[in-house]
């Protein structure tokens, strides 16, 4: 009811204490295609579904290397994601120049969150319309973080963002307790299976599925499409893998739905 009166500026509160522009920005994240991240004791894996504009075009690049020890997967406005990735790269280079050591992941994530927060408090800039899954390795081990347009950030064992991410999350919820002890390849498998859940139509293959890994003894790298195709093929061959029957959640397709992990705001009427 009140939404339309208070949603023009990011600097206008609603009577219920919400900033609608920020929430709309988070909607943009939900419209982007799915990105999944998961972490074990030694590795972090990012898996994404790349959308293609048409049959003729290449698939969207959703995973960016930020430094040898950090990479990021984006969902939402890709241009915003690219710009933020470039900013993260320059932060890492700057830190290395000053301190001759890799930027701790948590620090980078906080800097990113502060940057996003600025855009929620200026009348002349809009919030970034991109959600980021930051995967990195530092002295304290492997980490997976999510960054929101609101300026919030959260650390996760496993998470999914983007369209139909709830389906992926349901799979992850079932399996995440086994992740810490998983080997690198098992982790990648879990990631690809969970991303399959988030696929609306069409098949997962080496070109529309991007997989990246970072871990102890392994710098951040994106797997090439042949390797990914092999893993996908081997998943289909595994007859012992129980069929994952997850009913897709209905609210995902375009209706405004509040994720429970975002700011706890009531559903609008």
């Amino acid at each position, binding site marked *: 009811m009140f939404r339309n009166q208070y949603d023009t500026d990011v600097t206008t509160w609603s009577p219920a204490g919400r900033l609608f522009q920020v929430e709309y920005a988070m909607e943009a994240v939900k419209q982007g295609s799915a990105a999944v991240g998961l972490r074990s004791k030694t590795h972090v894996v990012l898996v994404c579904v790349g959308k293609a504009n048409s049959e003729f075009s290449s698939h969207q690049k959703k995973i960016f*290397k930020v430094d040898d020890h950090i990479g990021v997967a984006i969902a939402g406005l890709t241009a915003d994601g690219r710009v933020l990735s470039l900013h993260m*790269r*320059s932060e890492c*280079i*700057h830190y*290395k*120049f000053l301190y001759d050591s890799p930027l701790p992941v948590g620090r980078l994530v906080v800097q990113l969150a502060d940057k996003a927060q600025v855009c929620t408090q200026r009348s002349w800039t809009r919030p970034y319309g991109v959600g980021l899954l930051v995967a990195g390795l530092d002295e304290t081990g492997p980490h997976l973080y999510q960054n929101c347009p609101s300026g919030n950030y959260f650390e996760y064992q496993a998470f999914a963002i983007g369209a139909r991410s709830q389906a992926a999350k349901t799979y992850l919820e079932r399996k995440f307790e086994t992740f810490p002890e998983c080997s690198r390849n098992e982790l990648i498998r879990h990631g690809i299976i969970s991303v399959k859940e988030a696929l609306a139509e069409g098949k997962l293959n080496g070109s529309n599925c991007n997989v990246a890994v970072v871990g102890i003894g392994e710098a951040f790298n994106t797997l090439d499409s042949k390797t990914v195709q092999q893993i996908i093929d081997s998943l289909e061959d595994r007859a012992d893998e129980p069929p994952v029957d997850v009913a897709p959640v209905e609210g995902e397709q375009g209706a405004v739905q509040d994720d429970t992990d975002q700011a706890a705001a009531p559903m609008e009427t």
Partner: protein
Amino acid sequence: MAATEGIKQHHSTWSPYDNNGGTCIAIAGSNYCVIAADTRMSTGYSILTRDYSKICNLADKCVMASSGFQADVKALQKNLSARHLIYQHQHNKQMSCPAMAQLLSNTLYYKRFFPYYSFNVLGGLDNEGKGCVFTYDAVGSYERVGYGAQGTGGTLMMPVLDNQLKSPSPLLLPAQDATTPLSESEAVDLVKDVFASAAERDIYTGDGLEIVVVNAEGVKREFLELRRD
């Protein structure tokens, strides 16, 4: 007071620069490049350390050796390493040696009016896998050559290198390559001889010799002793 007393001119005795001495050379071969530098770091007539590396791996196939003011050298190396990271992010590959050579030249000239007191010699493999050496002055003037020497012992070494490596006159046809026809081990032996000779007479060169060889297989490092006096 006598009227003839004048105001003493007080000239500044502080300089932002210091010369830490030492010599660097590089020799280009048909499919390798040798880059070498002594490991003595000095100031005035004192030795600061006998064990300081003047050589920096800027990229896979590109190595820089610099003598002069090592604080400026260190800053220059860090600057170039950071720029190389940016290049790798943008182009998804390592910088080639000729590309790094141009970048170094631009970086030096950027500080044309407060220069890096750094006398550089850049060595590596070009895009075709042939050895290449670039020699610089402090403000970025550079040239691709077959061999080069910079630093306090440079003037002692250059005539010897000219004698051993200089290609016949460019007026002769067919055109000759700048790279030496010597084999890798012959070039390394020449480097050792030339440093041993320079260490005899140049007080700032000595203690140790660090030799880096870049070839198709990668980067190899060797270290040996020099006169410590």
